[in-house]
């Protein structure tokens, strides 16, 4: 009984604690935003792991999908619920912002999932290095498209999301952003976990190991690839939406290849095909980034260096191909995660 609900219990306690601390302002704005970026990074790394780890493809354009989610969610939210230079008065009563917010974030996710088709269709015929190049191209296409939309700020960026958050807080005074980040992080990990552990989702792993055998043993490989790319980019879009609202400002430049690389570093740090690895790596990486912040640009010497050292001495990442429960079987007695 306790084993069955221990994960729920831990998560509820953790979430409750953070919200409580934030509500009473025991937790400074800085620490709170680091925690929120941790959540976003967990979403990004675990969703990229779906493609790069479980499916064995090499996507280098994850930030592009994040960008789609960020812009769709931001523009939609500001247009509906905030006063803005471009859109003027809010279209809907800001009182509803709170209830509409998850829908707005999901809408960003859906748009990003559709953008994922940009990579999914070529993947039917293309693999490996060639598909990797296509993912980079997709990343550039998305960024350039947005840079050229002057209505939403073009390369100068887009803001006004604070207005939506204020509208939520005016309705019920709670630290809404940490709450939503927390909920969506759990949602993402939970969906991925359920997908890859089902017989249906194991088709993803079969494709990674031997695509010909998968197709001939009755796996509809094109369908699985489409779903996997769409799920991965869709979740990246959700992460992007949250990222935009946490910052209160987005510009296309923050979703370039450098950002994609950052997400990739997390996946390889954690271990390919290990969900717990991706989560752990996202947490560590977020902390590392904060610790290195004073170094400014030198940060981008230290982080790649970490990657080189990692690839030299532990190329399989922190967790390798395994999950927490496999590495520490005794832990299994205490939790069950489905």
């Amino acid at each position: 009984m306790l084993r069955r609900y221990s994960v729920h219990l831990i998560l509820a306690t953790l979430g409750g604690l953070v919200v409580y601390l934030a509500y009473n302002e025991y937790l400074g704005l800085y620490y709170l935003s680091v925690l929120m970026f941790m959540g976003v990074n967990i979403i990004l790394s675990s969703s990229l792991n779906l493609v790069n780890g479980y499916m064995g493809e090499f996507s280098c354009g994850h930030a592009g999908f994040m960008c789609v989610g960020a812009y769709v969610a931001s523009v939609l939210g500001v247009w509906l619920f905030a006063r803005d230079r471009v859109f003027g008065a809010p279209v809907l009563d800001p009182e509803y912002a709170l209830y509409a917010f998850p829908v707005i974030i999901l809408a960003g996710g859906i748009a990003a999932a559709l953008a994922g088709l940009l990579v999914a269709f070529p993947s039917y015929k293309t693999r490996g290095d060639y598909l990797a190049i296509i993912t980079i191209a997709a990343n550039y296409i998305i960024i350039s498209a947005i840079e050229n939309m002057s209505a939403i700020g073009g390369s100068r960026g887009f803001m006004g999301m604070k207005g939506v958050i204020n509208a939520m807080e005016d309705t019920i005074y709670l630290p809404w952003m940490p709450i939503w980040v927390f909920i969506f992080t759990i949602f993402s990990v939970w969906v991925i976990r359920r997908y890859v552990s089902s017989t249906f989702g194991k088709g993803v792993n079969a494709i990674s190991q031997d695509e010909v055998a998968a197709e001939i043993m009755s796996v509809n490989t094109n369908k699985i690839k489409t779903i996997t790319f769409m799920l991965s980019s869709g979740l990246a879009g959700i992460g992007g939406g949250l990222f935009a609202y946490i910052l209160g400002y987005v510009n296309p430049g923050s979703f370039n290849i450098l950002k994609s690389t950052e997400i990739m570093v997390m996946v390889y740090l954690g271990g390919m095909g290990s969900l717990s690895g991706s989560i752990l790596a996202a947490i560590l990486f977020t902390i590392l980034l904060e610790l290195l912040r004073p170094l400014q640009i030198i940060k981008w010497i230290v982080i790649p260096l970490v990657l080189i050292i990692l690839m030299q001495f532990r190329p399989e990442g922190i967790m390798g191909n395994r999950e927490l429960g496999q590495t520490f079987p005794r832990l299994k007695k205490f939790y069950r995660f489905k």
Partner: protein
Amino acid sequence: MQQVQQQTTSDPILEIRGLTQNFGGLRAVSDFNVTLAGKQLTGLIGPNGAGKTTVFNLVSGFYQPSEGQILVDGVPTAGLKPHKVTALGVARTFQNIRLWNDMSVMDNIRVAQHYRLGYGFFHSAVRSKRYRQREEEIAREATELLEIFELKKYADEYPRNLPYGTQRKLEIARALSIHPKLLLLDEPAAGLNSSDIHELIRLIRWIHDRFDVTIWMIEHHMDVMMELCTHIKVIDFGQTIAEGTPDDIRNHPAVVTAYLGDDKI
């Protein structure tokens, strides 16, 4: 040549008419014809590079034929993706074992059930009743299958850790988990030692007795073919050069010429 076969059903499971496959300038298969019906156990032999595997690849939908027609259970397979052909009831093994090596033995069987999964992404995410029911059935049937193949003790092992002969057996078990009407075996004895080969002959005979399946196999070990097949087709450079009972084949002048210098026969 007469087809001396026990025709149990009249409808052919597999009918191939005028099958031709060109790879650039190379004609790998040329005007190939065959009809398999009932519970036959038929062989396909020929020297290296004769086009045997290509015929199997064409049947399983891996290539689209340059010319000719393939009908599985009366359904033309032209334009069908391999997974669709498999769903029609064609399962196969590969010349070089193609198991999913980083997935447990049990999962190797489970993934092969995609053609009749009966649920999709949404069900897997919400863990609906249908999902739970199907997963339970699949797990149960997979366990039963592993049990009758005496592979149950390896259920949680990775295939690459198993002895070579056991991997071959697992690949055959995985193919049978699809409940095929037609089973294609591409050189199942390749790489096996002589005791494994005896085991394999017993296994194939047992499968042939126990399951309602037509078996078509490629093999270089003539003793295996002589022992198992009732009918053998011989091809060379993509062309059929002889067919008949194992005894007919053994002494056929064209076969002897084709294999001249090839010490496998």
